[in-house]
């Protein structure tokens, strides 16, 4: 089957404004959704689910969040880890303070709380731009982690400073968090969440709010002259981006690891999410998924590759090699396509449109 849009005519603007106007894309998405919802839960082992699928989904949410802020609104941020920590601790406080609150609302609530925190740290963005703003968001990263470390109220006075996800169920008795939850239930719960969040992000970026973000990113002076309020637009990007990061943090603590300490959300996480966004493609929701997939899958593949290839390499050597290959691959991809994997996919699609004729 060829990827062609020839012959697919739109007769109304509404039809032309669909997310996937081309039939092949719609089929492709349906197939991916069917595999993710129907096939993977049946065939995936516990190892595959807990080391690849769940972290991939969690990091996708964070990558979408940062992509909204950095890729769409053009505001560089290194505070992602701090915002994820905020989400994790907000979810912990919410679920322990209100044990009857549905876990869905706990996640959404933690997102909303993080959104407020994000707006607070987004205020400097009105005055400072680019790398300087990145430094200002570092303040958020360090301050928030320090706060969760130093104020015992956030961990409910736990002596170790570690929070453990309380067991929570949906639909009455299906456990999705805590140690007794089945990995497939966790995966499916998270998958549905990610589906809705990704759809919402895509919709936001194609409506007027998304256009305002991109206008501010591409030329803030011109944006202001056609009537876009810079402060409101930037802060809305910070709010929505932090909402996503907060949910990602909550999902990390409650579904992925089950228990976390503030240090889990160190600056390393912020950089990791930033790499995902850059490698996946700035200003692309698909790119957020590709970047998250790349960053989550690659270390797992690299760790397991010597075993699969039958090589006998010492363990410490493997971990060193892992870092080297990982770094080299990141540089390789950035040289091949600085606009990220999403752009590679787009170029591929354009080539397919003409295939097999080069012109």
């Amino acid at each position, binding site marked *: 089957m060829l990827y062609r849009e020839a012959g697919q005519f739109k007769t109304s*603007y509404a039809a032309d*404004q669909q997310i996937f106007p081309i039939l092949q894309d719609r089929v492709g998405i349906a197939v991916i959704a069917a595999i993710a919802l129907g096939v993977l839960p049946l065939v995936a082992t516990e190892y595959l689910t807990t080391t690849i699928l769940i972290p991939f989904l969690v990091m996708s949410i964070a990558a979408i969040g940062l992509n909204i802020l950095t890729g769409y609104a053009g505001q560089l941020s290194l505070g992602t880890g701090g915002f994820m920590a905020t989400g994790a601790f907000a979810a912990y406080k919410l679920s322990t303070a209100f044990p009857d609150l549905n876990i869905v609302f706990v996640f959404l609530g933690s997102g909303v709380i993080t959104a407020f925190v994000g707006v607070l740290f987004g205020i400097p963005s009105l005055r400072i731009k680019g790398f300087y703003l990145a430094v200002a968001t570092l303040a958020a990263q360090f301050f928030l982690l320090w706060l969760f470390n130093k104020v015992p109220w956030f961990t409910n006075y736990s002596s170790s400073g570690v929070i453990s996800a309380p067991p929570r169920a949906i639909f009455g008795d299906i456990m999705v968090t805590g140690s007794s939850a089945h990995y497939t239930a966790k995966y499916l719960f998270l998958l549905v969440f990610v589906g809705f969040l990704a759809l919402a*992000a895509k919709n936001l970026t194609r409506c007027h709010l998304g*256009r305002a973000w991109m206008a501010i990113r*591409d030329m803030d002076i*011109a944006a*202001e*002259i*056609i009537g876009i309020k810079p402060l409101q637009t930037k802060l809305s990007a910070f709010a929505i981006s932090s909402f996503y990061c907060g949910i990602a943090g909550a999902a990390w603590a409650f579904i992925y690891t089950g228990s976390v300490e503030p240090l889990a959300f160190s600056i390393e996480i912020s950089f990791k999410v930033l790499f995902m966004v850059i490698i996946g493609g700035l200003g692309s929701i698909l790119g957020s998924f590709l970047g998250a997939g790349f960053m989550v899958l690659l270390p797992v593949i690299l760790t397991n590759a010597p075993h699969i290839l039958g090589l006998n390499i010492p363990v410490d050597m493997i971990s060193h090699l892992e870092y080297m290959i990982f770094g080299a691959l990141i540089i390789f991809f950035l040289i091949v396509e600085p606009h990220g994997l999403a752009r590679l996919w787009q170029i591929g699609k354009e080539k397919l449109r003409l295939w097999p004729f080069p012109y």
Partner: protein
Amino acid sequence: MSSTAVSAASGSDAFTADGRHKIGGVILSVQNISLSFGGVRALTNISFDVRQHEILAIIGPNGAGKSSMLNVINGFYHPQEGKVIHKGQERKRMRPFMAARAGIARTFQNIALFKGMSALDNIMTGRNTMMKSGVLAQAFYLGRARKEETEHREFCEKIIDFLEIEAVRKTPVGRLPYGLQKRVELGRALAAQPEILLLDEPMAGMNLEEKEDMCRFILDVNKEFGTTIVLIEHDMGVVMDISDRVVVLDYGRKLADGTPDEVRANQDVIDAYLGGGH
């Protein structure tokens, strides 16, 4: 575009013989504006009026303060002295987005498009201030958000037809040639349905054919929508042909103000342009 039909029905006395809107009263008045940056005086005691539905040209040698004048009008610069009266109301300090919301749109000398967005999205962004749907409606593309997107798309398509850029509507503007980028920028300004349109050298760097096209668009905008146009232009042929009145600036001062014929005969203007007397 519908406003044309409505006002056309309201009576023929609002129009001239060739179908233009008759020039009305003063819509924007610039009074005794002085602007300086540090010790450099960009504008000194400038006053002129802009009348409704007219095409006003601001001309002058390089560095005369023409662009600064436009920047004062749309709130980008704040003059140290003088005032701008828009529709009978004096305004002191304002931010550019307020001018946009009050019906003043502009284009730039160096194209200021959103390079990462398609031509259509650029023009749609021009209508952003009119879209009111909330975040949740947009996130799920429901109700008002969906309705707004489709309605405004329809309006933008009319502008795209008008400017004859149908073929490039989905191309990222960074990839378009210069002349088309200028047109998209005009489209983005028109999308806001402004009362006053400020054009900063709309024809700079164009060949004769592109200039003729652009002149036609400017005249059509003025005729069809009754938009008041203030433009800066260096091409004297263009200025004398399309404008109703001309304001001449030189070294931040106003040299002359009148119809093209009056300005052409003005001795100060001849001196400034031909170098006599300096």
